[in-house]
């Protein structure tokens, strides 16, 4: 048996108390699923005004996710009110910080697409929607959070400069 487990004092934020206050990890995946469907429709609409409006809707839900956290976002609220009660209960919990960061990444991408689309850059809306779809589909289908992965690389890049 390992007699003692040395732990870095600075790493105290990460684990044990999470089980008490974390969120249901299926929530962000549900949200990513809804986002994937909306982004799919956006891509099917091509480079049109309705597509731009739908991407705006996606960006708006990302805003609610960044402001209120993944459990309090528009889709997160739908999940907690109407979807979670239908599913078997789980004691699995995750830190809401990472998915919140990922929502900020999603917001940046979709906002860039909207801004460029509004000033008339051709293809901006579909390309932004495609990039966001890759991330949301990875999250929904594989539970892999691409936005979260970008964090450490970003820190490394900033650290070097």
């Amino acid at each position, binding site marked *: 048996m390992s007699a*003692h487990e040395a732990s870095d004092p600075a790493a105290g934020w990460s684990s044990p108390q999470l089980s008490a206050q974390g969120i249901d990890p299926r929530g962000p995946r549900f949200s990513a699923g809804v986002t994937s469907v909306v982004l799919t429709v956006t891509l099917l609409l091509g480079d049109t005004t309705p597509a731009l409006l739908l991407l705006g809707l996606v960006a708006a839900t990302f805003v609610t996710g960044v402001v209120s956290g993944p459990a309090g976002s528009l889709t997160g609220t739908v999940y907690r009110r109407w979807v979670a009660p239908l599913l078997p209960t789980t004691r699995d919990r995750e830190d809401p910080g990472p998915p919140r960061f990922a929502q900020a990444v999603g917001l940046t991408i979709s906002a860039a697409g909207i801004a460029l689309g509004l000033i008339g850059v051709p293809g901006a809306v579909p390309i932004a929607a495609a990039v966001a*779809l890759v991330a949301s589909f990875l999250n929904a289908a594989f539970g892999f959070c691409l936005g*979260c992965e970008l964090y450490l690389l970003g820190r490394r890049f900033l650290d070097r400069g």
Partner: protein
Amino acid sequence: MRLLFLSLLVATAIGVLVRLRDGRFRTVNPTEVSPLASFASGEHATFVQFSSQTCSTCPRSLALLRDVADQVDDVDVVELSAENHMDLVQVLDVRRSPTVFLLDAHGAVHARTSGAMHADHARAAIAELVERKPHVRT
């Protein structure tokens, strides 16, 4: 329409690749000086996990490594916050969290992996360390 298929294809390819690679330890050629030597608290082996603030799977991964370590003699688990050890993150080329290093008794890096952990892979990495032990350093 083409863009839709392309993004779904790219996402699926990435997802499958990540699933295949996650938690699989790959052996690292031992270096002269191990930057992690000071964290080798296990008599026999030590898992060093780099966690970060935006890592949802890190707590789960750490708990799994602790479970594995508890079943083997003299294996410890150490968690480091990547944000507070950016020098090590750069030197060791840590790109994702969690990234886990398996150290031998001397603190030399034997193997590394990243992403979601699997108990079987972690146990296999320890077992491989036992086999290799007589050949490493004298």
